């Protein structure tokens, strides 16, 4: 049996690399990780829809309430206002012209539209109920209520994030980090994309 002499592990004596001195901003990483998990959950819901559609002959297509299209428009619009807000916030913090009032204004507008969206979703529920379509009426209804509810809960989470951004921007010296602002807006845009996807799922007879 050959006995090789153990070589000491090679050590590079170059200065440590890889991680820089900048303060870490995990919010930006964390939000992508979180979005991956949310996307995975909705992928699971989607596969459940596909399997469920094939498993029974009780799938009845429902006509989606009109108000959903209005809600969709509002949510897309809110993504645009949030992008403007993000620019204004950055400009204000760097002292490049935008005022706090402008930044706050766009943020509040986004927040308001988010609230209108959630209220609109609720209105859609009321409309379905008035047509006698409840959670357990048929599988399509079940998925409609479930997906819109789960999405709305996530939107409410996004609204909480926006509220936090506004609170952090409010003091004389803002304590808002760029990564927090960015993370919040990524999340918000994702909610918009997710909603459009869900709308296609319930509307386009997937």
């Amino acid at each position: 049996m050959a006995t090789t002499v153990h070589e000491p592990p090679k050590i590079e004596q170059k200065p440590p690399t890889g991680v820089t001195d900048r303060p870490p901003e995990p919010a930006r990483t964390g939000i992508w990780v979180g979005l991956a998990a949310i996307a995975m959950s909705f992928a699971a819901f989607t596969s459940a829809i596909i399997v469920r559609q094939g498993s029974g002959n009780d799938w009845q297509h429902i006509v989606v309430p009109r108000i959903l299209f209005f809600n969709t428009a509002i949510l897309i619009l809110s993504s645009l206002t949030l992008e403007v807000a993000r620019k204004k916030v950055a400009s204000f913090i760097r002292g490049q012209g935008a005022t706090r009032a402008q930044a706050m204004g766009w943020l509040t507008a986004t927040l308001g539209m988010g609230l209108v969206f959630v209220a609109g979703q609720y209105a859609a529920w009321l409309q379905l109920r008035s047509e006698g379509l409840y959670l357990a009426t048929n599988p399509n209804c079940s998925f409609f209520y479930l997906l819109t509810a789960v999405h709305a809960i996530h939107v409410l989470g996004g609204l909480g994030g926006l509220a936090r951004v506004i609170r952090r921007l409010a003091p004389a010296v803002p304590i808002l980090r760029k990564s927090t602002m960015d993370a919040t807006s990524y999340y918000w845009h994702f909610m918009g994309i997710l909603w459009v996807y869900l709308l296609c799922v319930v509307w386009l007879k997937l």
Partner: protein
Amino acid sequence: MSQEAAIAHHGPPTSFLRKHVFSVDHKVIGKQYFALAIVAVFIGMILSWLMRFHLVWPNAALPGLQWLSKVGAPAGVMTPEYYLSLLTMHGTLMVFFVLTNAPFAAFGNYFLPIQIGAEDMAFPRFNMMSFWTTFAAFVVLMAAFFVPDGPPISGWTAYAPLSAVGSDAGPGQGLGQTLWGLSIAIFCIASLLGSLNFISTTLDLRAKGMTLMRMPVSTWAWFITSCIALLAFAVLLPACLLLVLDRIAGTSFFIPAGLVISDRLQPHSGGSPLLWQHLFWFFGHPEVYIAILPAMGIVSHILINSMRRPLLSHKVVIGSMMAIGFLSYMVWGHHMFVSGMNPFSALVFSFPTLVITIPATVLTLIWLGSLYGSRLQITTASLFSLGFISMFVSGGVSGFFLAQPSIDIYLHATYFVVGHFHLVMGVAAIFGIFAATYFWFPKMSGRMMNETLGKIHFWFTFVGAYCIFMPFHYLGLAGNVRRTSSFVYDYAQPLIPVHKFITIAALCTGAVQFIFLINLLYSRFKGAPAPDNPWNATSLEWTVPSPPPWNNFGGKHPVVYHDPYQYGVEGASGDFIMQNSPEKVPVRS
């Protein structure tokens, strides 16, 4: 600068509540997870005692059992359905609250940030929420013991429609099963938050010089595990939501039409029972690796220290763990070979299942090859690590059988399966937990554990575990079906002596675990004070005091100069060089 987003820029805790209960300190949270896992594992173990006892002495009364449940165990003799309740609770507790919590959440929380040189997790408040959410899940699950019909009886896999139709399907399938569904859903949320934290921390908070390849293999294991957990629990959560809705809102996701249960035509239609199985096992198989991967990392970390040499290849070990993690998502169907899947898909699932043995074999061979020519030091921690390898191999080879659909026709739902997963996922992972406890206890508590008690604990546990779980394979090969509370089948009669042997082994081995508990409690208060680096180890957790201060490195920022395992370095001042030591490694001529 904000308080939450910034890492560990929270100040030292001041009040008692902030320090010990609602702490955001990852070390306190890690210990809380550990304590919860200890509580869960002893409850789970006692449940298994009760089941084993009932199996071989079905008519003997266990005094006091009626206190646990009047209906389930009148006069101390449990009913067949109460056996199933205990079985369900045993599985759920062990898989979720022990095998997920202890090696991953508990030790990962405590040591991942320190090993990469961070002051805390990326999101300390999320971290606190993860633990308390897990705790809530535990409380909700335990509540099932105290509802009138008792805990659910559908096993930890909760196959629909048995789990979905409600109390018509049997005692425990009412409120008990609903609590089960809610508990698991809550647990999913907690695990998702935890995984998010682990991933962000590893990616963002590494100290200067801590490149990804300089992370200890345990950190790698926790990191890979959190990636698996993130996607697995993200699927189980919707599945549990659908299940709970079927139960309480009258939907029909998993319940097909025309079921007559307890003489009642169920008011459901169109659902798919196989949908539950697919969603559940899509989580369920990766869950096996959520349990075992951290143990692999921990055991590697400890063995390297005991062998006083690095593993033959750091990269190959990490690559193998990644391969296992990746493949774990393509094999869930092997739990459903006899469930009426398309026979072609059975073959499709069988192949990656067999392929997964390649990275597992590579890992085993690397461990064995590294042992060759090493300077192996025997401590309780290294004994449990070596035991882990033995158990992992024993539990792993039976996977060869179950991975093949043709053989699974015969072995599915027999005790062979029980032996397989208990060895590979239960005992092996628990050996990892034990090794971790003996190894890291000095760091966590500032006191050494008693090695003599530890070794006694090891010997009885090692031999005992084999006595319990090896015979399960023989029973399975003889065709003995699992999940029955007594042996009414003709063929099972000659097998009862084997069951008696297993039960006695289980009672003894279980009793030995109290030595561990005593050692834990005794050492916590009376153990010898631990030095900073009792094992002459290299990674960053041994550069800080035992126990570490609230901010780990005392406000300093560690700088890392070396690969994680500079052991057996000849010509250095010791036989090892710590990761943050600027000492140069003497280059041999």
